[in-house]
């Protein structure tokens, strides 16, 4: 049962072959047995999950389920505020923080009948690409426990890959959903910036952060996105556009669509196994009737540098709130400033400190134009190039990552870690939607991800291409053996 997608679980609920309580109990038992080795969860909410499952079971019995997610056992990245359940952001500074409210995303999932199993691990404050740098413990990749699951939403991707949740949610600021989805062989989607409310999502970089789903397959991805998408008056950057019926669009195929292949994403020195898997995937899509065209996104090579100014700048401002006064850790000091400085020194890990320093420097007097202003202009160029490409093509296809999952401790140098996000960052800078869908395995048996990017708010077409590809291939049938 553990690697069955949500839509199959709910089909079984409908038929009466399975109950939400039995499903939740199986997942909780599996978490208890296996998560010590994977480390996907920071908090498991056994009693709450079972109570929600009982409610769901009652609704299915009465023939009144709340929808296609009623009774779905899900995991939430620990940046999503959950009322009454501690939300740590993977940081010592929020170790005991218990939010008084649910994030809008969580509120919508509960209203859809979802059963929340627990909160998943991440790199502290979502700063990282490996989930090694949580203040609590690292997460391991279910395909190979010596390797990282990607990050920063690595707890969520490992939970879905390892059969420790039927689906999960994460956040993607520079690739933190798509990259771990690729590393763990699951589907992961970053919606258009503004498609999903950020209310109650602990902020990293406010102009880039976006919540999205991890799933066993594309159909589940569409179901999970549909549950959370749409305007929220509590997030003034959320977009007031109607949400299309993703499920109705899903099976329309790729015939007649034009897919763009960006030259800059197929570069000298890229991992040959990834290049081969992605090129084969493109041939599959061509075989399904898509037209393939080359496109150019020349500013891609500068996107990483622009991102590593914009992100730390926004993060340094967002993280200023952790001052030992209103919530979180406090370390005593001789006066207010000393208390704040010692609290932040004790509460933040090395990477968080580095980015706060970098961001504060980039925003400080005399450097603002040279760094922050410049990066924002480069961002305009990245956006313009995508817009020009999307005038010619419907979707862009590319690798999700330049390499497969690496070993724990392999990327100690901050810069080499940053380079992991080189193919995902441009999507965040331009705000466009993207999905990573499994497209093969390396010789060592590690998953490879195909990235499909679309026009702003065109999630339906992105999902449609991913669905067509998934249906034409059998990668999904392979699962890691965690026994």
């Amino acid at each position, binding site marked *: 049962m553990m690697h069955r997608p949500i839509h199959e679980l709910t089909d079984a609920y409908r038929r009466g072959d399975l109950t939400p309580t039995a499903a939740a109990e199986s997942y909780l038992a599996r978490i208890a047995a296996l998560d010590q080795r994977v480390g996907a969860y920071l908090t498991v909410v056994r009693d709450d999950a079972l109570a929600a499952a009982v409610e769901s079971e009652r609704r299915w019995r009465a023939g009144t389920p709340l929808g296609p997610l009623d009774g779905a056992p899900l995991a939430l990245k620990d940046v999503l505020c959950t009322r009454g359940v501690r939300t740590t952001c993977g940081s010592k500074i929020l170790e005991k923080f218990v939010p008084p409210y649910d994030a809008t995303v969580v509120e919508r999932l509960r209203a859809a009948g979802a059963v929340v199993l627990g909160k998943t691990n991440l790199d502290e404050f979502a700063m990282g690409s490996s989930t090694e740098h949580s203040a609590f413990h690292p997460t391991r990749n279910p395909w190979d426990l010596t390797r990282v699951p990607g990050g920063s939403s690595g707890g969520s991707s490992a939970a879905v890959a390892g059969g420790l949740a039927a689906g999960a949610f994460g956040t993607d600021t520079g690739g933190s959903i798509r990259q771990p989805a690729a590393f763990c062989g699951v589907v992961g989607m970053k919606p258009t910036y503004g498609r999903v409310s950020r209310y109650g999502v602990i902020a990293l970089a406010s*102009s880039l952060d976006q919540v999205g789903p991890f799933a066993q397959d594309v159909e589940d991805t569409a179901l999970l996105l549909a549950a959370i998408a749409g305007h929220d008056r509590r997030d003034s950057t959320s977009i007031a556009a109607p949400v299309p019926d993703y499920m109705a669009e899903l099976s329309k195929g790729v015939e007649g669509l034009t897919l763009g292949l960006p030259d800059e994403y197929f570069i000298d020195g890229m991992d040959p196994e990834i290049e081969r898997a992605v090129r084969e995937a493109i041939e599959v899509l061509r075989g399904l009737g898509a037209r393939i065209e080359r496109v150019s996104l020349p500013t891609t090579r500068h996107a990483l*540098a622009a991102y590593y100014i914009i992100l730390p700048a926004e993060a340094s401002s967002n993280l*200023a709130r952790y001052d030992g*006064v209103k919530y979180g850790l406090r370390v005593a000091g001789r006066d207010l400033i000393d208390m704040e400085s010692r609290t932040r*020194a004790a509460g933040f890990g090395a990477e968080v400190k580095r980015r706060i320093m970098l961001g504060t*420097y980039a925003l400080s007097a005399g450097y603002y134009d040279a760094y922050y202003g410049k990066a924002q202009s480069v961002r305009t*160029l990245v956006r313009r190039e995508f817009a020009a490409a999307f005038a010619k093509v419907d979707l862009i296809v590319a690798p999700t990552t330049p390499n497969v999952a690496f070993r724990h401790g392999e990327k100690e140098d901050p810069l080499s870690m940053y380079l992991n996000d080189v193919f995902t960052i441009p999507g965040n800078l331009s705000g466009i939607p993207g999905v990573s869908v499994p497209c093969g395995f390396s010789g060592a048996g590690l998953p490879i991800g195909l990235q499909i990017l679309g026009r702003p708010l065109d999630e339906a077409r992105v999902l449609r291409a991913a669905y067509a590809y998934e249906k034409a291939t059998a990668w999904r049938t392979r699962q890691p053996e965690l026994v």
Partner: protein
Amino acid sequence: MIDRKDVEHVARLTRLHLTEAELERMREQLNSILAHLDTLRLVDTTGVEPTSHAVDVVNVMREDVEEPCFSQDAMLANAPDRSGELFRVPRIIEE
């Protein structure tokens, strides 16, 4: 290049107490990262407007309607130190 005084200045601005060893390591790492980020200078951005945000919405307004908000207790529940209805902090103004 960032020197030691810059690092100390930025640490003070951002309220981060760093040890001697941390200040030195931070100086090295920031210089190495900034050297990479300096490649941005190569991009010609003459006349290119900055993008602060990928969504073209400006000044979103809504009706100013009164509605229930969190109780004082809920807001103070996570405070490391409180005094009645207030957050308590170390003395700010000298006696």
